[in-house]
């Protein structure tokens, strides 16, 4: 075991993924063999990575791997410190379960799509995520980051015959490279300010950097990593790309890939950079509030189950950033103990979101694989045919809605605690307003998330099937069911063990330079999270109380109604047969909330009527209403930007007129311009 937690163990993990990728490609002609190779290697590699990550985390054993070269730009260093170990554990945990799920799930892609290609990019994807969170210098990080973006691009367009997937992939590709440009800029600025490529040596050199330089690095990092994390308004790739990928990949993309953005934000903001300015913390908090509220509102208006989940990822990234933003503000106010609580809340929610979002995506994948449509309106009554999936989805829905005794509740409770502390300790009106809005926003988000999942669960699993095909639906193979059940169990286990997790997170954050001299804000009592200010919660007690309350309720019900005879009869249907048309739709459920929020969501409505006889318009045959909500970022930011760029491109396009003479003239003018610049001493 100890031998595994070493650089040799880490290299072995990477070799397993490499073998999986190459093996899948070589066995491309046989889907059965390539699928088995790709998935088995991914599973074994993930299990090994999980052992290394969790082992390093618990035993506090850092791992270092140095690949030196005579050229500094070709020297790569990887390492697992406390923060990396935490993210390696999350990535490996979700990758293990997603790979287990894939055994039964990927078969439905054949023979339309080759499993060899899926196995190749899937293994590279997991390996690149592990490399991203373990890279310890700029070059290694940038290469791993780009590898992660490219492999996911090919996974997004895996079902390449679907035009929507190609469109989603293109959008993802463009946004990832805009993100890469900002990240590269942040890294170059870091290098310029510190003169070193290694992350570990940057912090001391940055203490003398100018505020302008620090501000530029922070902003570039926020935009670059914010695009990957999917913060609003930089999220436009996310609702398209996540649903397009196969479900076990969506689970990884939504559950962990977007967290690599959060990982780098934490590394830069809390480990590399000195104390950030107050304005920056406020900016992060504002983005967090907007992302969480708008994310859940857009989710509420969605009919596409995977897009709905993708929008919830934006919401949850907002919740994580509420913790990160609060921590930044507390640090700039000189309150490191509160900052540590807020950051732990963010990190805890990162873990929780990875678990319940993976669970929801895997459950959604099971549902979608039955009818090959993502539109919720086509399902209904699935609980009868897919009970394991239904229970798993319900647990995931409860966890994401922050209902006790599941894990989402604990991290949101911690986030609330830090936001309340912000209201108390905020030393200005602006801060008090910001924290109050954040508390209100988080409460609203939780409520709307619950409403959204009542809609999703009700429409998909309850009532009557909306089509004949639903009655032929069946559960996924055992491996897929098992993976969902493991995740469902984890939502409860993590909640019950929240005290242990919080203390582990406290020891991780304790290694950050920002908190090196801070006394732990948590008192060490088993099964209880006790904050220094006096707030405490015992999730074990909450879980036990709830179980007892449920048992008591059942007992009372059996006491009262146990002796009554139950007669099952046909529902009175006004003389007409019951049909799916009588059921409430997802649109119908969300309509009232969207109407209340119309100021923000700007819904548009299009109704059409078809008559029995077009000439005599008295007897309508069908009356349909289409309801649209438009993403404000698309309509107000990206479309105008697109139009401006198209116009600018047309103007610039005139330069490229196909004349060699003109091109030589441009070179000549550039040469002259350079001489002018040098003569005037500008450079």
């Amino acid at each position, binding site marked *: 075991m100890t031998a595994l937690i070493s650089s040799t163990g880490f290299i072995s993990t990477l070799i397993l993924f490499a073998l999986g990728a190459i093996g899948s490609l070589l066995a491309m002609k046989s889907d059965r063999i390539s699928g088995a190779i790709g998935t088995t290697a991914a599973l074994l590699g993930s299990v090994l990575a999980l052992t290394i990550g969790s082992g390093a985390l618990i035993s506090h054993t850092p791992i270092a791997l140095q690949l030196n070269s005579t050229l500094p730009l070709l020297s790569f260093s990887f390492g697992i410190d406390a923060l990396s170990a935490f993210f390696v554990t999350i990535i490996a945990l979700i990758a293990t379960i997603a790979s287990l799920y894939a055994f039964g799930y990927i078969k439905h892609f054949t023979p339309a799509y080759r499993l060899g290609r899926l196995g190749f990019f899937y293994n590279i994807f997991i390996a690149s995520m592990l490399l991203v969170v373990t890279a310890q210098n700029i070059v290694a990080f940038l290469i791993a980051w780009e590898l992660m973006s490219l492999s996911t691009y090919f996974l997004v367009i895996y079902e390449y015959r679907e035009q929507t997937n190609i469109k989603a992939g293109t959008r993802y590709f463009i946004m990832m490279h805009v993100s890469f440009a900002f990240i590269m800029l942040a890294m170059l600025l870091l290098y310029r300010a510190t003169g070193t490529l290694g992350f570990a040596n940057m912090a001391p050199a940055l203490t003398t950097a100018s505020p302008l330089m620090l501000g530029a690095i922070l902003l570039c990092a926020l935009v670059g990593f914010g695009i990957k994390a999917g913060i609003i308004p930089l999220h436009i790739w996310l609702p398209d790309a996540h649903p397009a990928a196969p479900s076990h990949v969506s689970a990884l993309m939504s559950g962990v890939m977007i967290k690599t953005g959060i990982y780098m934000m934490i590394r830069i903001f809390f480990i590399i950079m000195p104390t950030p300015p107050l304005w920056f913390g406020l900016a992060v908090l504002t983005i967090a509030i907007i992302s969480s509220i708008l994310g859940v509102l857009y989710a509420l208006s969605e009919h596409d189950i995977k897009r709905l989940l993708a929008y919830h990822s934006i919401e949850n990234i907002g919740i994580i950033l509420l913790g990160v933003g609060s921590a930044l503000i507390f640090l700039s106010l000189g309150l490191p103990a509160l900052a540590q609580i807020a950051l732990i809340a963010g990190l805890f929610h990162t873990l929780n979101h990875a678990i319940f979002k993976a669970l929801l995506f895997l459950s959604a994948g099971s549902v979608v694989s039955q009818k090959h449509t993502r539109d919720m309106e086509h399902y209904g009554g699935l609980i009868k045919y897919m009970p394991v999936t239904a229970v798993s989805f319900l647990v995931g829905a409860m966890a994401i809605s922050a209902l006790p005794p599941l894990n989402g509740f604990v991290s949101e409770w911690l986030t609330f605690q830090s936001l309340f502390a912000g209201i108390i300790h905020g030393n200005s009106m602006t801060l008090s307003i910001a924290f109050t809005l954040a508390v209100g926003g988080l409460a609203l988000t939780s409520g709307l998330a619950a409403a959204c999942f009542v809609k999703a669960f009700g429409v998909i699993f309850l009532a009557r099937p909306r089509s004949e095909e639903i009655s032929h639906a069946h559960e996924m193979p055992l491996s897929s069911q098992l993976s969902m059940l493991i995740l469902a169990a984890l939502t409860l286990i993590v909640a019950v063990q929240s005290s242990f997790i919080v203390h582990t997170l406290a020891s991780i954050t304790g290694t950050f330079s920002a908190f090196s001299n801070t006394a732990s804000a948590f008192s060490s009592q088993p099964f209880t999270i006790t904050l220094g200010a006096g707030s405490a919660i015992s999730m074990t007690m909450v879980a036990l109380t709830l179980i007892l309350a449920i048992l008591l309720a059942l007992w009372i019900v059996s006491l009262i109604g146990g002796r009554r005879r139950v007669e099952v009869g046909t529902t009175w249907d006004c003389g007409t047969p019951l049909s799916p048309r009588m059921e409430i739709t997802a649109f119908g459920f969300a309509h009232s909330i969207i109407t209340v929020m119309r100021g923000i969501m700007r819904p548009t409505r299009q109704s059409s009527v078809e008559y029995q006889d077009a000439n005599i318009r008295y007897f309508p045959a069908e009356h349909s209403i289409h309801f649209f909500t438009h993403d404000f970022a698309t309509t107000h930011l990206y479309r105008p930007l697109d139009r401006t760029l198209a116009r600018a491109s047309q103007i610039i396009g005139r330069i490229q007129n196909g*004349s060699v003479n003109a091109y030589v003239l441009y070179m000549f003018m550039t040469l002259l311009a350079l001489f002018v610049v040098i003569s005037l001493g500008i450079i």
Partner: protein
Amino acid sequence: MTELPIILAGIAFMTIVLIQIARKSMLVVELFVVQSAAVIALLAWSSRDHATLTLVATILAIVAVKLFVAPFFLKRLIATHASRFSSSTYLSGPNTLIVLALIIALSSSYLFKPLAVIAPGAQTLLFLSIASLFCALFIVINRQGALSQMIGILSMENSIVMMALAAGLEQSPALQLGITFDLLLWVCVAYIFLSLLYRQFGSLDVTQLRRLKD
């Protein structure tokens, strides 16, 4: 005797200026031969103190390529396809001369003063080379005929050689032989390419080569 390099560079420069206004194709090729001869003489003069057999062989190779092979291919191209040297330019005659004057003035202006440090003892030669280089570049920009552009590029190469000599950047004979071989290959490829272009489009005027034919 010390004025000889400047006189030779001046001859090369003048031929480039004359190429801009020349109308007949054969005259342009002959002007290029004169220009190349002047540059080769300059090269020979600069290596007079440390002449070796290899250096002499190199100079002879350059003579062969620039004074015989390249003109041979150019003249053959004109004779085979009866293509006249396209005298059409984007700018009219007077405007061409005005731009030339501006380029020459610019080349001697303070803008290029930072370059003087690379040839402190041969500034006149250096600025003549820069003026030649820009004028040769202007041939490529202003002329519409592909043949003129080819000669423009060859003249640029000659100007670069002059500039290197002025800056004392003479390279080893082996490298110079390599460059000459490169030039020889380029002339051959350009000859074949222009022949194919003429066969396809019936013209070597670049404004006529708008669309590729099947």
